[in-house]
């Protein structure tokens, strides 16, 4: 820290002001590399000839000062500081022949390369944005004409399609998927549905046969299934306690009537 201040002391006032501005604007830097690039400009030399050692000192001084001013520095600034401190020691100490890792010079050269590359990218980015741009300096056709797409459809069929089609029609009647034929079957559920609605009106003893729907009354097959369904339904209703059933004799007509509340 002391060293950094000593150096700053020797610099011009303008440089000191610039350095203070750096601190205040810490939020304006896009990371440590950006800050290093800005610091390197104070050396006023070609980036290729930059003193990395000097740059490392400047950076470490910056971080020290930021700490003193209690500025929140993001972790990557501190990581860079640690790395630069390591680099500084490598550059200052005589090379250790037993050390396998890269030399301080190699690391410094790479950092110089990174800075030079970042600056180069910034320069070409500026050159790119300064070019004539479409919609700003260069213009495309204003009145555009859509290409109309004419859709022409051709239909195809093969002889096989034709023959299969014909075969399909001619053999249609031969097959019918197996299904239970339920047209002439009345279920107990159907009869129960009907009777629940009708039973409210059955105050008097009525022949169960009179409950059959008329359309089920003529065909003997339909009449038989309807009768069975209605009988089963009336047993169900009797079990629920909603009707009473009576039959005078074997094979005599079966009568039902609504079960009155007083009977309960």
């Amino acid at each position: 820290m002391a060293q950094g201040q000593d150096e700053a002391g020797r610099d011009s006032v303008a440089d000191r002001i610039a350095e203070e501005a750096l601190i205040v604007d810490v939020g304006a830097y896009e990371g440590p590399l950006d800050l290093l690039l800005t610091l390197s400009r104070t050396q006023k030399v070609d980036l290729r000839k930059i003193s990395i050692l000097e740059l490392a000192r400047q950076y470490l001084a910056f971080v020290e000062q930021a700490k003193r001013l209690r500025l929140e520095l993001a972790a990557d600034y501190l990581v860079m500081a640690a790395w630069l401190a390591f680099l500084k020691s490598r550059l200052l100490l005589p090379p250790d022949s037993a050390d396998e890792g890269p030399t301080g010079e190699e690391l410094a050269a790479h950092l110089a390369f990174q800075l030079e590359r970042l600056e180069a990218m910034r320069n070409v980015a500026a050159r790119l944005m300064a070019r004539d741009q479409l919609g700003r300096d260069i213009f495309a056709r204003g009145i555009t004409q859509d290409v109309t797409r004419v859709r022409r459809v051709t239909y195809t069929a093969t002889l096989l399609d034709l023959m299969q089609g014909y075969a399909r029609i001619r053999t249609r009647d031969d097959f019918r998927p197996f299904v239970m034929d339920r047209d002439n079957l009345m279920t107990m559920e159907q009869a129960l549905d009907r009777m629940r609605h009708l039973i409210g009106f059955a105050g008097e003893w009525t022949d169960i046969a009179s409950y059959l729907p008329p359309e089920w009354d003529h065909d003997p097959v339909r009449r038989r299934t309807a009768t069975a369904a209605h009988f089963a339904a009336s047993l169900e209703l009797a079990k629920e306690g909603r009707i009473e059933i009576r039959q005078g004799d074997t094979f005599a007509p079966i009568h039902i009537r609504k079960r009155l509340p007083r009977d309960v």
Partner: protein
Amino acid sequence: MAEQERMVEAILFATAEPVTLPQLAGRMPHGCDPAAALALVRKRFAGRGVHLVRVGEAWAFRTAPDLGFLMSHEIVETRKLSRAAIETLAIVAYHQPATRAEIEEIRGVSVSRGTLDQLIELDWIRLGRRRMTPGRPVTFIVTQHFLDHFGLESARDLPGLKELRAAGLLDSRPQPGTEVEDADQAGQNDLFEDDA
């Protein structure tokens, strides 16, 4: 003036609407003569692929009318014929001449006008002689184009039901009453005799 011509070209090219003379004058530097420049541009583009045309009081570049065909892009799409159309076509081919009522009877469903129209448009069926029955209904027969398309010498080359079955196209188990099939065959031949 050459420079003004370039300006007129650029303005008329890039502007989204036709541009009037006062608008041109307003956009070009002071002292320009847009009318004269326009006249030169018009001459320069005469006979080119795009022309300078007057649209009411304004000017615009437009495609030369004879090149309008370049602005449409034809897409040929191949689709499979619908099942209804194939069945109708098959019935006409096997039973020709067939009336619409006959086709409907065989298919078991009504035949839409559109299906017949489509087949006629494809030049696969055409109107045959009217049937000499009450109402004199029109009949449909297949065309030469149909025979060419399906690679047939004549409609009689179409395989019969027996052959279809032999070829595995009718993988139905043979029904007990196969006489029906023979009757079909006979009926079909009758119809073809008519046609011959």
